[in-house]
Each structure stands twice: as C-alpha cells, then as structure tokens.
C-alpha cells in the first residue's frame, strides 16, 4: 500500500570539509544544536502583491557563496510562477534576506537557492552513508514555531521506493521540509522531505544535494531554462523507469482464468481482495498495484507514477445485457486517477475501439493528456474490458503519469500483452 506520507519543509549544510575540521564533534544534542543552529534557515515563499507568506519550509547553507538547499516542493510556487512569488530566508537569530533560485532536482525534490547576504561557514555533506542504527539529528522549523532539533536513527534506504529515500526514525513535522539531517560530526546525511507519521520519516540522501551542486552554474536560473531543466529531468527519469520495466518480460500474476500484469518491480506494490455486496448480483475480485512514490511538480500536479488495477467481475444472475451494462457503468476508479489543473495539463483526449490480443477481445479506451510548459511529457490512461464470456469479464485499468509518448505507447501495449485467458483452468 502506498505510504500515506505528507511532504513537509526545511534547509541545508556547510559545504567545505575544511570547515568541518574546525568543529569539534558534538558530544550531545545540545552541543550539536549550538554548533550548527546558525546554518539552518527558515525558507519563506512570499506572494508579492500581498507581501505575505504563502508557504514556509526549512533550508540549510551548503557549498560555496551562500548556497541554500531546500526541497523543491517548498519553493514550487516560486518555480512555477516566478513573477508572482519571491523567496526569503529567516535565520534563527532573526536575520532576513532574499533568495534566488539557482537549480532544481524535481525527481529527488531538491532546490538550490542563493543568498547574497553574509552567512557563517556552510555545512559539509557527508560522503559516506551511515550504518543502520546510527543516531542522526533532524533540524528545521516545524509549524513555524522556531528552530528545532529532533533525535532519531537511520534505518537504511527504502527498499520499495522508486525514488531513493532514506528511512529516518524520528519525528519530522510540517515546516521541517528541506531541513538538514546531521550526524554527530555535523555533516549532512540527508534532507527532510516527508513523513508517514508515528516517527516514520523520509530523507533525500545527501548525495543528490552534492550532485545538484555539481550540476549548477551558480547563477540564478530563468524561467525558460528552469522549465527545460525540469523537462529534461522528467524525460531522463521516465526513460530510466521505462527501460527498467521493459528490459525484461513483465511479471505476470494469475487472476482466476486470466493472466495479468502483477508486481512489475520491487517499487510497485500490489494488494487485492474480493467483494460482493449482499444486495448486488455482481461479484468482484480486484488486484491493485501502484508505485510507491511520486514526483511533486505543483500543488495541483504530481507525476512519475504507475498505477493499475484488474477487476474480475462475474455474475450468476444477471442477463448478459444487464451484466455488460453494469460493466459500462464501472469505468471510474477514483483511487487511480491523477490530479492536474488547466494550468498544468491539457484535457484528456480519448479513443475507444476493439482490440484483439491472444484470442481475447477487449473493448479498449485509451486517453492521453499533455503537460503544458513541459513539452514531450504525457499522462496516459488505458481501460480494457474483456469480451469473451457472458457472465464474467476482466476490467483492467492502467494509469501512467509523466512519460514520453513512445514509452507511454510501449508500456500500454506491454500491459495489454501480459493479459491472456485460459478458460480451461479449473
């Protein structure tokens, strides 16, 4: 099942290892907090007309020249509407200043900003991943109530995650997104990004911050270059996902007499059940799968998602005309659908028709919508109803978000090709 995590918000660390050498290893949490508190900043996204905060998160100083790291989702409004928003920082000591966007990594939810103000030496980014169980310290500004340090432990990388995440057992709360998670030496191990509650937190590994820094020119990025960068990152990411899925035969699972796409990768998890209402003449066995993570682009749009569902619907009482009419009504699976508004995506454009594969006839509907500002990126929706039996039918739905046209078509076709019907099975 998908983690019911929510994105949070925070900042970054000192870049130069030389600086670290000057700092003594903290002996307890209080020392660590005292040593590094001035490297952690609150990031505020300000709506220009009202000059009021539209969102807050945390960030930290890292790298040369006053670079500040935070999560992309903290400054998404600024990235999407640069004319309407601006970013500022507020230090724990009350110093304020403006920030300019330098680079983003939307796949790993990171943003790099730059401040022209005077700041203390930045935090260093750790080169080694800690051992499981290592004590770590998350810092940030939860709920806008002031700088906080939270003790927790590192519990390894998430095994079933499409986008690499660290598991941090500690309390991360809204407002801490983008804040650093330090080891006892004060090195950045990860960046706060999300929480599932109950002390289950998720971090972006610090290596992605290093990579983002290396890929940045250091000068503020304009809107056109930003969109091109995001577009390229999504293209690279979807190409990677598609090649991972298409390199081998797709995993098959058995749903009574049908073979269907199953747990296609370790980052896709599936579950199922059967349903029959006492007042309903339909019996349903369903099998639902989805990727564990998504990519935040804006409040209205997330992408980088694969979801699918198979429903084996049967009846013993209904006449075929009534049964198939019920199947016609069962097109909508709200849990599978994607978000999106008019500003970010086009409408869906759909076609329906009969498709024949492996001696199974399907009534198929395929819909596609294109992303505005991110040319060549699409969301796809495929819905199939098998037409082979008067009292039983398979309905399969595939939702793909953030793929190139070629991969959308290839993955959809591969999904259909996994389906076969073996009526002789007991």
């Amino acid at each position, binding site marked *: 099942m998908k983690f019911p995590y929510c994105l949070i918000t925070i900042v970054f660390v000192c870049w130069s290892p030389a600086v670290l050498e000057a700092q003594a290893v903290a002996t307890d949490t209080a020392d660590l907090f005292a040593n590094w508190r001035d490297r952690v900043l609150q990031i505020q996204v300000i709506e220009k007309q009202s000059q009021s905060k539209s969102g807050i998160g945390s960030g930290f100083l890292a790298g040369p020249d006053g670079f500040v790291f935070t999560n992309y989702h903290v400054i998404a409004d600024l990235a999407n509407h640069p004319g309407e928003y601006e970013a500022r920082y507020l230090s724990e000591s009350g110093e304020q200043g403006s920030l300019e966007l330098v680079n983003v990594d939307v796949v790993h939810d990171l943003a790099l900003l730059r401040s022209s103000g005077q700041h203390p030496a930045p935090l260093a980014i750790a080169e080694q991943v800690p051992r499981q169980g290592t004590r770590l310290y998350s810092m940030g500004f939860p709920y806008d109530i002031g700088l906080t340090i939270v003790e927790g432990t590192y519990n390894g990388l998430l095994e079933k995650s499409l986008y690499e995440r660290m598991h941090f057992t500690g309390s991360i709360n809204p407002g801490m997104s983008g804040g650093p998670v330090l080891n006892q030496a004060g090195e950045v191990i990860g960046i706060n990004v999300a929480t599932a509650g109950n002390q289950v937190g998720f971090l972006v590994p610090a290596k992605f911050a290093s990579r983002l820094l290396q890929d940045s020119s250091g000068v503020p990025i304009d809107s056109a270059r930003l969109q091109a960068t995001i577009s390229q990152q999504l293209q690279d990411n979807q190409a990677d996902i598609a090649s991972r899925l298409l390199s081998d035969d797709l995993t098959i699972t058995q749903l009574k007499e049908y073979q269907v796409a199953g747990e296609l990768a370790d980052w896709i998890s599936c579950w199922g059940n059967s349903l029959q209402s006492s*007042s*309903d*003449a*339909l019996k349903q066995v369903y099998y639902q799968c989805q990727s564990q993570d998504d990519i935040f682009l804006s409040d209205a749009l997330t992408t980088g998602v694969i979801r699918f569902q198979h429903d084996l619907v049967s*009846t013993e*009482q*209904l006449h075929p*005309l*009534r*049964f*198939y*009419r019920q*199947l*016609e009504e069962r*097109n*909508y699976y709200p849990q599978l*659908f*994607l*978000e*999106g*508004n*008019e500003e970010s*995506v*086009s*409408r*869906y*454009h*759909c*076609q*329906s*028709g*009969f*498709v*024949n*594969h492996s001696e199974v*006839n*399907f*009534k*198929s*509907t*395929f*819909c*596609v*919508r*294109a*992303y*505005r500002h991110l*040319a060549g990126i*699409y969301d796809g*929706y495929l*819905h199939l*109803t098998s*037409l082979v*039996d*008067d009292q039983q039918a398979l309905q399969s739905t595939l939702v793909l978000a953030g793929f190139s*046209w070629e991969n959308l*078509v290839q993955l*959809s*076709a591969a999904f259909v*090709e996994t389906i076969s019907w073996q009526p002789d099975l007991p």
Partner: protein
Amino acid sequence: MNDPIGEEPVLRASIEILNRSGQLVHRHLWDGSRLQIGRALNNELVVADPYVCPHHLQLEFEDGQALLRDQGSLNGSYLNHSKTRLESLPLSDGMTVHFGHSQLRFHSGLGELQPTLRDTSRMGVLSGLGKPWVLLGLAVLALLALYAAELLQDPGSLGWLGIAEEMSYPLIGVVAWAGFWALLNRVLAHRSHFLVHLAIAFAGVASLFAVSQLISLLGFALDWDEAVWWLRWLGRILILACVVFAHLSYFSQARTGRQVLLASFAALLLFGTAAVGSFIEKTQFSSLPWLDPLIRPPAYQLRAGVSVQDFMQGAQALRNRADEEAADE
C-alpha cells in the same frame, strides 16, 4: 346567406360577437333596422354573457350612419381598449366594442367568411389514439420500456418493488406532460382529449427508449463509439419533435409547416439545450478522462478487433490534439 324577405334592405352589414378569448360565437346580418343586443331573450341578438345587461346595446342606422348606443348598462361599453365609457358611437368598418366579457365587431359589408375548420381530432392516424385498446397497447409498451431501462441500470439490488418505485418518477413526468397538452388543447380547442395526449406521450417514451438502445447497440456492434453521442442526441431531438408535432396536430389549426416548425423549435429548446450543456461539460477541462465506452455482450460485437500495436498507432492523433491544446496558452 339570404337577404331578409320583404323590402330591399337599406344596409347590408354584419355584426360579429366574440367571447373573451376572441373566439367567434355569433354572426348576425344587419339590415339597418333597430337592433337590440343583450342577455334577455327579447333582444334581436342574444348574448349569453353574465356580465352583459339584459338590454345592453342598441344599433341604429340614422342619416346614412350606423350608430351604437349603450342602454345605460351596468358594466358599460368601450371602444377597443379605451377606458372611456361609450354612450353612443358612430360605427365604421372593423370597429370593435367591448361590452361585458364579450366583443362586438362591426363590418360594413357581409364580412369575410372563414373556411370551415377541420376537426383534426376526428381525422387521420391520430384519431385512433383515443381508442382504449390503442391506449392500452401504448401504455404497455411505455411501461415495458421504463421497466427495461430501470432493469439495465440496476445491478440486481432493487427488486420488483424498488424498480416499480424508480419507474414511478418518469411515469409521473409522462402524465404531467400529457396533462400539459390536454390543458392547452382545452384552452385552444374546447376539449382536452387527455387520453389521446397520454397515448402520444406513451408512444414517445417507448420510442425514446427503443431508439436509444438501438443506437447504442449499433454503436457497439460497429465500433462507432464517437458517433453515438451525437446520434443519441439527434435521435432524442427528432423523437421529441415528432411527439410535439403529434400533440399539436391533434388540435392546432395552424398549417402543417408551422406545426413542424413549432415542434422542431420546442424539441431544440428542450433537448437541444440539454445536448449543448452535455457537450460543454464534455469539452470543459477536467482532471478526469471523459469515459463513455459502449460495452455490450460479446455476441453483439460485429467488427473484429485490431492488434494492440494498431490500436496504439491510431492513438497518434490523440497525441497531436493534446500537444496542440497544451501549446495553446
């Protein structure tokens, strides 16, 4: 019409009495001799209107001029829509005087004789609609259509009683529809013919269901999903136009062309606006795909399916449309 027997009349004029709806109820040839008009039977022209006095008006022909005189009536007499009570009025051709709830129209000649009205309720195909067995047959068809429609919607949870309850709502609508036309019939042509209008409404319901199902079935069989939305609305509009035309032709004296025009206008107003609303909803932005594939039992599939590759290749047009829309700011 024959002239009065005796001397050559000094005048050949006609008087028409109309009721408050403007319908002609009496025509009288006036030869110029004094003419008493009122509710009493000893008048030359008796008007059965309770708002008219026993002796309300008098017409005379003096010095070559027709003259109307009010006889001191309770409710008075008025020229056209004037609010000034008349005492006497020289009449000229076409003049209308309101008295009581009636009207008097003066023609200096014999006036134009309108052609005899056809009693359309006794002619043509529709005249048989009032027969009990026809009404019963159409009622059974309509009930079957409503029952089938509810049955198709129901996943098996309603039962007989539930389906009967669901059917009752459209049935109330059908009766109200027939009632509306019966009322119009009563106002415009004296009789309501409720059962005839009910029969027309039943026929309409049965036709709507049958045509809608046929279009959907054909759409599925021949893989015409995209045309079905248009065909369904076209079918609904055409059937409604036919139903309205049937109602109208039962009592309207208007020419057939006008009735067709009026029926088409009414159908477009009712279903055409609904179709436009549905189209706007369909084309408006939504984060959900507009999904309405036709799905019927395998036995009804008449066209063979294409391969997955061909189906996806055909989707290239969708990509182009989505790209165009995304590029459009």
